């Protein structure tokens, strides 16, 4: 069966069960008031009510047509049993029967309203119910005679059932459109996130600056921090507006739009940055290294993070960076003569280094090792593939 139709039928059945159950419950409550409760008619109708209730409860799991037929038979039986009194039917029984024939039964039958045959069956039941109502209801709760009230109830339920059933295919078509729109949104977002992620170097410098700010910018000249923040804000703005990333107000840290870069000029920028932040960095070894852009980004970021750690934790104002290379690898050794630490007892403070440097290098196939002891300074060895 078409899944749309299945969903429609399930919804109709759920609504039908609620309506039929509520109607039956009202009938039971009304019949259980002093006028009727305890009479022969009451005890006679009770088993039918129980069976009808059990059937209504099973509506969603068993063949609905049989259930509807069963419940209708039970409810007619209740009506006739309650009305089987000499003389006029008491008001309480009339009200109980009304709840069954005008609400419970048409409510249940809306699950038939899915085919032409179903509509015919629905209105056949409606006419029978109206006839039964004429015979068994002697005092209508409203100013309409029972027959008309009954037909009106079935009519209203028909409209309700039609609206529910016919809404489903329309809504599912709209959902399809939403799915298509979502697909487009997802593709656009995939592109956008790739663009943002490919701006790794930018994020690295932004991270470094924000981390400085997180430490209230203590130990750094306000002017240096401001200029750093200005550059980064400008870059982020360009990224947001989708502009190319290599124009800067006072260019310092822009990723070049090339696949391979020499390390020299960019190393210089790292050095300058830390000079501004009052850390004197001595550079040794190779000054020109060719590396793929993303490896270079990771490498420079890691060096910067290590220097930032020296600046913040080592308690010295200078550090040494030595860069060496062989056929397969480029290495950087960052050394300070500061207070050092016991690597086995790395605290919360240093976790950031572990996550950011090791994680970042691992992404490009590199690694990092830390050598330190309390009072003996720290050396970090970074390695990236060529």
């Amino acid at each position: 069966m078409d899944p749309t139709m299945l969903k429609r039928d399930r919804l109709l059945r759920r609504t039908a069960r609620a309506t039929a159950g509520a109607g039956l419950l009202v009938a039971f409550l009304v019949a259980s008031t002093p006028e009727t409760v305890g009479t022969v008619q009451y005890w006679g109708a009770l088993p039918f009510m129980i069976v009808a209730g059990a059937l209504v409860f099973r509506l969603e799991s068993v063949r609905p047509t049989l259930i509807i037929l069963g419940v209708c038979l039970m409810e007619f039986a209740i009506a006739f049993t309650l009305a089987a009194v000499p003389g006029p039917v008491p008001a309480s029984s009339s009200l109980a029967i009304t709840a069954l024939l005008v609400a419970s039964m048409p409510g249940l039958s809306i699950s038939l309203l899915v085919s032409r045959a179903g509509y015919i069956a629905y209105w056949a039941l409606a006419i029978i119910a109206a006839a039964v109502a004429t015979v068994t209801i002697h005092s209508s709760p409203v100013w309409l005679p029972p027959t008309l009230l009954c037909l009106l109830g079935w009519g209203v339920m028909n409209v309700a059932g039609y609206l529910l059933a016919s809404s489903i295919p329309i809504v599912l078509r709209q959902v399809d459109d939403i799915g298509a729109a979502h697909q487009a949104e997802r593709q656009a977002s995939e592109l956008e996130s790739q663009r943002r992620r490919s701006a790794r170097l930018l994020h690295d410098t932004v991270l470094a600056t924000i981390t400085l700010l997180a430490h209230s910018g203590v130990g750094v000249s306000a002017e240096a921090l401001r200029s750093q923040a200005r550059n980064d804000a400008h870059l982020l703005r360009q990224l947001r507006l989708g502009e190319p990333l290599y124009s800067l107000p006072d260019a310092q840290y822009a990723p070049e739009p090339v696949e391979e870069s020499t390390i020299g000029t960019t190393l210089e920028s790292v050095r300058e940055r830390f000079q501004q932040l009052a850390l004197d960095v001595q550079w040794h070894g190779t000054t020109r290294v060719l590396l793929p852009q993303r490896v270079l980004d990771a490498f420079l970021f890691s060096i910067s993070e290590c220097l930032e750690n020296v600046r913040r934790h080592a308690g010295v104002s200078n550090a040494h960076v030595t860069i060496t290379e062989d056929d397969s690898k480029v290495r950087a050794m960052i050394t300070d003569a500061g207070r050092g630490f016991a690597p086995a007892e790395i605290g919360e403070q240093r976790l950031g280094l572990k996550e950011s440097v090791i994680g970042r290098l691992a992404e490009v196939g590199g690694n990092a090792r830390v050598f330190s002891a309390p009072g003996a300074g720290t050396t970090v060895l970074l390695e990236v593939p060529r």
Partner: protein
Amino acid sequence: MTAPLAALTGRRPLGRRHAGLGARRLWWGVIVLVAIQMVFDVGQSLGDVDRINRPVLVVTAWAVLIVADVAVMLVTRALGDHLPNWMFGLFVGALATSLVLDLAASWGPPTQDLALSAGRTATLSLLLALPTRPALELVLATLGFTFITTLSMALDGVLALETLHSSVFTLSQMCFTVLVAIIAMSSFRDLVRREIEHARTRTAVFAPRLTLGIDQSEQLARLDLAAESLLAAVAEGRVQLPLNEDIARRAGTLASELRSHLLESRSRTWLDLAIEESELLAAAVRVEDPSTSAGLLGPRQRGALLSALWLIADQQPPRRLGTPATLVRIHRPARSGATSAALALPIVIQLSQHRRSGLDAGIWEHIGKVGDYREVHEQGAVRIEVRAIVPSGGPRRGVAR
């Protein structure tokens, strides 16, 4: 995402969009229902008008009710299927006033047992807010109205034994008509929500092997924006250096979120996304896929696996709390044969809340499309072990529809 950051970046959860889809048609049905009830009850009032103790109160009740109903219909239309809190409060207040006026009109002997008229329509009128307000609010309002009426009946002596049946009928009719309509509407909404989530998750099937997801991508953009405004504030001297503690703390949160975001977000597959982006699926299914092998499945296998998971989720009793009852564990792929260029990917689906007989046949049909499978029964739980064959020639690229 941590709560403070959610506040920082102003992000709202996805998934409540389109909640009112299809509700407009049903709203017309509600209006017709209220109109019919109104015709009945106006007839009732007209019939009783010479006998009622204070007819002027009934007329006032009707005036208040009609103004409230018309106003709420106009406002709902004008605001595009939206009803603000204060207006809803006003609406419920007006309906309650109408009910109380109606009760007061026939208060005291000899007419205290006259049937409700405007009050009954007023209660049913609560349904006019059905497309715009959560079901729970309407249920509470309905119960409140029923309680007011019961109280009034009790104080007025209408709950006497000889007229009890009529009172019970009136009260049940008031309360149940509205409740049943709310149940129908809620089922309809649940269905629409399920369908929307299903349609959204289906699009994840076409993602590349590893991806970021709309939520994550949006979040990265928001983090960038938050960083940009912080940096701009520093650059332009709008905040004093050194920063005060509060702003420094915000910068710290931002830095760690941005860092973890850049490091972790690569390891996500279409399946993680699909489950995360759907509240219903996330409540029912949990995925363990440390090697991100789900990304190796082709679009057809992915679609079939997702359909099977949806069917499983549909059959689970809804649970808002606790861990999901179904666990999907995806292991590392292994060579499927000495010469074959294909890999065998073991997928285990552990169902702790199902019995074999209770499972929809469609589930097996879909799982069959993912790969060969066998079922293992242990301690009342079912485990489905699937062996999916995937090409070993690297990850498959996403395919656009």
